[in-house]
């Protein structure tokens, strides 16, 4: 797992090294530092000539410190380290809600927003998917069953972000029922927590609806095929032969055995949805990492893009890790 993370980081390091992007990133950091130092020095050193010389000296020092005088491949370990600790300087285009322009500050602030939106959607859609999937698994080959495979086909081929645009067109423009974007009503002065919460829900509705539609089809399908494959297992028949009540068969045999694979899908699905929601966030102008990514691309904010790519990869790796831990609890076959 950790190897994956390193793999991606090294790959990223090499790519930005070869293409010269790492230089831009590092110079950006150096310049930022110099600006601060220059301000401090300006108080002490009054002579502009002398000040410039001092700054220039410092600059050379920093360039050496960041290995900018060496070829790009010598800088890879350093840049990897900097990405890992999110020491990526400042953003060119965005400020954090509290006014900081440090990349790390901006991102950390936005993670909860993304998590809020995506987890809500994933929870709702996986719950619905679970119920409908279980239900259709008991009716294999029926009309309902064919319908689920159609729904999953549609889900698979639906560009989520486009669906978001359509949803805005219908619900925000035509019907004027929901706001077309954002997370709170701008200028909302009421501080009553219930009103604020309802306002949040009102804003959350359309993006969550969009993600829900995009996700639910595959949930139904996945649940269905997992449950069906377990229904066909011999131990289910044995359970019936043992004269156990249907309730016990369902809970202890069917559901209990479906849990590990379903959970796997749920956690990977959550990680996948966080990255998959980049464009949906952008469409709904949801103040999460996705729209940050979108804006960073529009304004060519390299430091930000680098940091976000790393965070998104990290999300995946963390999901994998959680999964491995959970599996040990859930499935005796992987216990040692």
């Amino acid at each position, binding site marked *: *797992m950790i*190897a*994956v993370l390193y*793999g*991606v980081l090294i790959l*990223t390091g090499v*790519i*930005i090294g070869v*293409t*010269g*992007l790492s230089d*831009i990133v590092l110079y950006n950091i150096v310049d930022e530092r110099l600006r601060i130092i220059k301000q401090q020095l300006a108080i002490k050193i009054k002579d502009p000539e002398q000040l410039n010389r001092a700054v220039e000296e410092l600059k050379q020092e920093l360039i050496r410190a960041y290995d900018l005088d060496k070829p790009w491949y010598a800088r890879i370990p350093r840049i990897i380290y900097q990405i890992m600790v999110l020491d990526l300087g400042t953003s060119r285009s965005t400020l954090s809600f509290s006014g900081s322009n440090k990349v790390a500050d901006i991102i950390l602030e936005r993670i909860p927003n993304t998590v809020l939106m995506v987890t809500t959607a994933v929870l709702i859609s996986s719950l619905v998917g679970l119920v409908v999937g279980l239900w259709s698994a008991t009716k294999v*080959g029926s009309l309902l069953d064919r319908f689920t*495979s*159609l729904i999953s*086909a*549609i889900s*698979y*081929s*639906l*560009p989520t*972000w*486009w*669906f978001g*645009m*359509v949803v*805005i*067109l219908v619900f*925000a*423009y*035509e019907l004027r029922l929901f706001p*077309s974007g954002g997370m709170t009503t701008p200028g909302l002065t009421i501080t009553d927590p219930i009103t604020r919460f309802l306002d949040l829900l009102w804003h959350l509705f359309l993006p969550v609806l969009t993600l829900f539609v995009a996700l639910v089809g595959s949930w139904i399908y996945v649940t269905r095929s997992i449950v069906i494959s377990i229904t066909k297992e011999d131990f289910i028949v044995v359970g019936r032969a043992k004269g156990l009540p249907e309730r016990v068969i369902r809970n202890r045999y069917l559901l209990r055995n479906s849990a590990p694979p379903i959970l796997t899908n749920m956690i990977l699905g959550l*990680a*996948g949805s966080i*990255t*998959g929601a*980049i*464009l949906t966030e*952008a*469409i709904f102008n949801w103040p999460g990492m996705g729209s940050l*990514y*979108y804006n960073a*691309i*529009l304004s*060519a904010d*390299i430091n930000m*893009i*680098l940091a*976000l*790519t790393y965070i*998104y*990869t990290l*999300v*995946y*790796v963390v999901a*994998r890790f959680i999964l491995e831990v959970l599996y040990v609890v859930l499935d005796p076959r992987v216990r040692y």
Partner: protein
Amino acid sequence: MKKLLRNELLRIFLSSSISKIGIIFLAIMIIASAYVVMFMPLDFGLRYWNNPTFWADYPKLVPPEWVNIFLGNKLLRHTILITEKPTLSLEDTKQYILTYSHDTDQLPQTIVFKLNNITFTYTPIIELSVRRPDGRVINLLVIQPLTSGVSERVDLSGRLEVAVALSRFLKDEFNVSISATEVIQRKLEFKILMGTPVISNGYVDFKTLRGNYMFNVFLKSDDPTARIGSVEVVIFGWCYGLMGTDHLGRDLSQALLYGFPVALLIGVVTSVITAVVGALAGVVSGYYGGIVDEVIQRLCDVLNNIPLLPLLIFFMFVIRMNEELRRTVSPLAVIIIVLVVFSWAGIAIIVRSMVLSIKSQQFIEASVAVGASSIRIMFKHILPQVAPFIFAQMMFLTPSAILSEAALSLLGLSDPSIPTWGQILESAFANQAMYLGLWWWIVPPGLLIMYSAITFVFIAQGLEPIVEPRLRKV
């Protein structure tokens, strides 16, 4: 025997209605693509789509014509009148008459006179006028072209001389006074030009005059060589074509059509290369084992566990940032390469496990004993057995390539010289089409993306019973 098996598999495939639909969809896609390749210029993107002057005579942001079927109040159609020869030729005057019949209450967005390629020895005088259905004539404008060979484009809206003429016309004929600047500010040009004023409660309103309008262009000159190459009058309507237009007046139906071969190309090329790379890696890994196997499997592990979209975005961004790469590599090629790099692992892993089980089959062991070469064994025995599986995977890869390209287009990271459905949506999003209710700009491209993706999903679903015999109906 082999042939029998193949026929049986084909029968199973075709027996499901979902694969039939998939095949029909695919056929439609191929036909559309063939049409584009045969009848549309291949540099459509650069030469036409991204060239705003080409679309100057199209109405901007209007819905398709067929909405008239659903809307009771008819939307005015876009009309272009054109003539190359003068209708009347007197000694010192050539008169070009273009007749237009107006039969709705809706007024045009604007009317443009186009005088193409005016040639002369001595500067002529050109007069533009309109004769309305009620017989009244409005002299709109007089122009004097300065150099021979130029073309004149006269947009009647927002032009002061025209407004002055209209203001005077109103005063003279109906005794209603509205100043020329007010005409321009309140955009009254066509209400006056094509209507009669009605005064109620002190307000001036206009009633549209239906019937035949004659647009006249007089070329007055002693110079017998003076002529206008062609005279056009463009009446900008409120709907256009099959699919409407965008903010530049571009005919969306053309780009939508052009999107077919592009989507097909991206999807098919990506999936074919991915399948080939994945299958080769899987076969090699499974067949040789040892260190080769170990390396390939580790690589697959890494590739399978990273999020595709952010990395795809990242790579596309890197390409765009680097001057040299941007000039030398097409973003489309990069999308394909990156997709291949990150997708082959999935195929390789499964092909490998299939190869491992096939390898233990007796006839393969026998071939090895007989001394058949590895390559021969792989091609003759292993590939045919894993082929249906690889094919099904390809069918799933195709839509994901199409969808990825669309997603990157939305971020403005795709190839701007080749219009795709994703790019139409990108400009729709950038121009806030959703908030303006411009549904024809949003809905069709997305539906087409879905259509092309679902075509392959259907085929893949139809292949399932072949790949997974347990799902076969008994």
